[in-house]
């Protein structure tokens, strides 16, 4: 929100006056005395304020070559012995001192002194310059300011130097009349006829004749502007004019208005309330003259401005070119690729910048040609708005990401931009520079040319797969299936192999134990091989061999050939029950008798063979219980 303020440099004194006004009658005298004393003490260059500070300012940061810019160097908190600012020379710029002003003020209960040196800088050629740091020496200490950047554009391409904002300019003649009372407000609208979206400049001015004492400004209501898009044109500007031979101090705030519809549109009214000094009726006291301004009464003066009407015309339908997107103003176009060379399938960026004066925010799209061999993707836009010479200026940049489908040099047809020029009152079409880009073959496509000389000329996504129903699988549940679980089988195999290996090693380490372990199985296998219909001598021989082999394995010595008493003794020693011993000996005796024809009943052969299995089972159990069976 804009707010009209008093002149620069008067803020401190204004506070001083407020302090005086806020005190009651007798107290004012005391405050006046105190301030006067402090003022006297402060006069010889007191520096009770903050630490020394150098404030370097330019009235503009951008200026054309052979132009002029004003620079102020403000020294705050320095003593009176401080040196003049030392400005380092800059090639391409000339510095001329215009003058010096001092200010002593009372801020927040502290005395503040400042000295401002003003310089005119003449620019000679375009470029970007760094001014400073400015140096000031005070009491043997060297102080430096921050450097400033100044951009100098080519002559004629930048903004012409105009009245700087926030600074005073020499009085100028103004057509018009003053108004009674010495203070009044006006609004100025220019032009009075405009097209839709053409800039209309609105100025609100407060005129104050120099003999009128203005104490304060408040309740500023800017002019209404229904039917317009409003943009500020910067801070308040102060200058002086002469009206009918009288000098006026003028405070001005300006806006750029852009009509949004056709017809007669009204701007304003606006209002501001000023407080003027009014003489007190009571008898003046001793210090009244000294604090004249502070001890005056104030008088509120509301100032209203007359509303203004302008005629807004619609843009002509006749002669409107194709591609017009509603932009009004005066523009130039610039196109740029971010690379000079790209690779097929890889993105690069095209920037189209529309630059000039007009309603920058509403600049519409340029006309994009249909470029062959390129895929185009919108990548956004950026807006930059500035104010110069009470005109809204700036640029809007449209960005497109391009991807080349083929290799080779691709020529880009230029981008066009259509706008309405309100000064020429016609549509205009401007065209960007034609661009071209060299596109290399995509990586992995065989380089510049494949071995057979085939060059890739396009790069796009491949077609879908058809008949994919056979590939589809239900989205599986978490967890292992039987097929995955079976992969644990090697562990079982390893465990089994380890068991076998261990057993084999144990057998190899203890042959006797091995023989005992396998005695029963060997005997049963031999018994199973005995044919049922064999002759009795043959059966008797086999049964005797089986039994002798079994007993040899367990007793650890050959049985064949031993006497029956020795065998009985060995079996007794092995704690084999007498019944099984008798049965063994009986079987062996029967077998001998049958084999050698010395007796025995051959008809018993099948019964003996059938009973052999049971005998072996009982013997195995007896041996395992015996001392010989430990560990088997």
């Amino acid at each position, binding site marked *: 929100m804009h707010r009209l303020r008093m002149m620069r440099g008067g803020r401190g004194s204004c506070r001083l006056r407020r302090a005086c006004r806020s005190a009651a009658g007798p107290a004012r005298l005391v405050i006046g005395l105190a301030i006067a004393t402090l003022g006297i003490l402060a006069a010889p260059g007191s520096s009770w304020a903050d630490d020394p500070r150098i404030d370097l300012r330019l009235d503009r940061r951008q200026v054309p070559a052979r132009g002029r810019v004003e620079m102020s160097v403000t020294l705050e908190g320095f003593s009176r012995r401080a040196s003049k600012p030392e400005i380092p020379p800059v090639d391409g710029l000339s510095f001329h001192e215009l003058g010096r002003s001092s200010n002593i003020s009372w801020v927040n209960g502290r005395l503040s002194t400042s000295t401002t040196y003003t310089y005119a800088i003449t620019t000679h050629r375009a470029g970007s310059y760094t001014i400073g740091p400015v140096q000031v020496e005070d009491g043997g200490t060297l102080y430096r300011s921050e450097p400033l950047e100044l951009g100098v554009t080519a002559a004629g391409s930048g903004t012409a130097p105009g009245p700087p904002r926030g600074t005073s300019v020499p009085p100028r003649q103004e057509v018009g009349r003053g108004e009674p009372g010495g203070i009044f407000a006006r609004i100025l609208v220019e032009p009075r006829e405009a097209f839709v979206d053409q800039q209309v400049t609105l100025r609100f001015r407060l005129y104050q004749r120099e003999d009128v004492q203005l104490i304060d400004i408040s309740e500023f209501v800017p002019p209404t502007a229904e039917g317009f898009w409003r943009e500020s044109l910067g801070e308040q500007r102060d200058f002086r004019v002469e009206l009918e031979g009288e000098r006026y101090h003028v405070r001005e705030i300006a806006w750029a208005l852009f009509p949004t519809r056709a017809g007669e549109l009204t701007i304003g009214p606006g209002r501001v309330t000023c407080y003027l000094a009014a003489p007190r009726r009571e008898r003046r006291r001793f210090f009244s003259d000294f604090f004249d301004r502070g001890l005056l009464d104030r008088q509120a003066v509301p100032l209203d401005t007359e509303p203004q009407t302008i005629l807004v015309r619609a843009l002509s339908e006749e002669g409107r070119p194709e591609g017009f997107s509603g932009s009004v103003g005066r523009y130039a176009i610039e196109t740029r690729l971010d690379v000079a060379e790209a690779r097929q399938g890889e993105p690069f960026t095209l920037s189209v910048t529309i630059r000039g004066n007009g309603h920058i925010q509403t600049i519409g799209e340029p006309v994009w040609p249909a470029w062959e061999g390129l895929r185009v993707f919108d*990548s956004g836009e950026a807006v930059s708005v500035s104010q110069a010479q009470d005109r809204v200026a700036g640029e809007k940049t449209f960005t497109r990401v391009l991807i080349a489908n083929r290799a080779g040099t691709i020529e880009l047809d230029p981008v066009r931009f259509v706008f309405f020029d309100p000064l020429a009152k016609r549509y205009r079409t401007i065209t960007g520079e034609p661009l071209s880009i060299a596109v290399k073959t995509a990586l992995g496509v065989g380089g510049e040319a494949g071995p057979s000389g085939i060059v890739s000329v396009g790069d796009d996504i*491949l077609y879908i*797969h058809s008949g*994919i*129903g056979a590939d589809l699988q239900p989205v599986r549940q978490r967890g292992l299936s*039987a*097929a995955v679980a079976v992969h644990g089988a090697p562990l079982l195999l*390893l465990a089994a192999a380890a068991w076998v290996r261990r057993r084999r090693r144990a057998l190899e380490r203890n042959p006797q134990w091995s023989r005992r372990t396998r005695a029963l199985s060997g005997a049963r296998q031999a018994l199973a091989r005995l044919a049922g219909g064999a002759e009795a001598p043959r059966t008797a021989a086999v049964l005797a061999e089986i039994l002798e082999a079994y007993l040899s394995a367990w007793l650890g010595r050959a049985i064949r050939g031993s006497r029956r008493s020795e065998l009985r003794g060995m079996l007794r020693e092995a704690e084999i029950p007498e019944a099984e011993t008798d049965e063994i000996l009986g079987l062996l005796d029967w077998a001998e008798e049958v084999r050698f024809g010395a007796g025995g009943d051959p008809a018993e052969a099948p019964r003996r063979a059938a009973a052999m299995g049971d005998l072996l089972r009982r013997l195995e159990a007896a041996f395992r219980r015996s001392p010989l069976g430990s560990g088997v």
Partner: protein
Amino acid sequence: MGTRTSACARRLASSLLLLLVVCSLGDHGARAAAAVPQRVAESLQAAEQAYAQERYSAALAAYREVLASGWSSASLYYNLGCAAQRAGRLGWAVAYLEEARRRAPRDPDIRHNLRIVSGQVRDRRPPGDASWVLEALAALLDAYAPADALRSTLAAFWLAALLLAVHWLLGPRARRITRRVLAPALGLLLISLIGLALKAYQVESAPAGVVVADEVEVRAGPRNEETVQFVVHAGTLLDVGRSTENWREVWLGEEMRGWVPESAVTEFSAPCWRP
């Protein structure tokens, strides 16, 4: 004695092999037996027709119906990616093609289309400062799906286990032969296990989501009033974390973190490790 032991080992190995074959056949048979329902087949047909007629949004919708029916494959995700790209849904195109690549990383069509759509993504992740060795290793791992890595490891495991079992079961003369092949087999198993571990690490550290909105502001917290930290665009791969009501935490690298509306990102499905 040795003969009997060998016979026992042979019987054991034969039984295990038979079990494996039966189970594998059973699993494959179960897969083959899971016929695609009629409505899914119809959706597929409608999608292919719509794509051929350049009605890409309709094709995308039909393919999505198939996915929502509980059926998937690398080819389905590939077709979804193609349809999304043609329909101008760049974020979804990247999401689907990346899903397809994770299932079939060596499919040339998938790799080609993913390269194309990735080139259209506005945001570029800052290049890493990994050495060429790590980059080569990452490329090698990229060529294999998680299921491939597990399958290779299981094969190496089977080979090493069988050789070791045979080595233990056979006699000393045969062991001289098995000893020569056992060491390479165990080495292969070790390499496979390391590869499996690296693949698991890669899968866990890969971006877990993708931006599907055209542009989304990443805010400091899960509220519209929070400060905008940065802006990401469709197709940008990022990591996703916590979820609150309609908001999702995302991050790009160590420093770029924030929250986005849940609808602006999609999360990749869990990796399929089943061989």
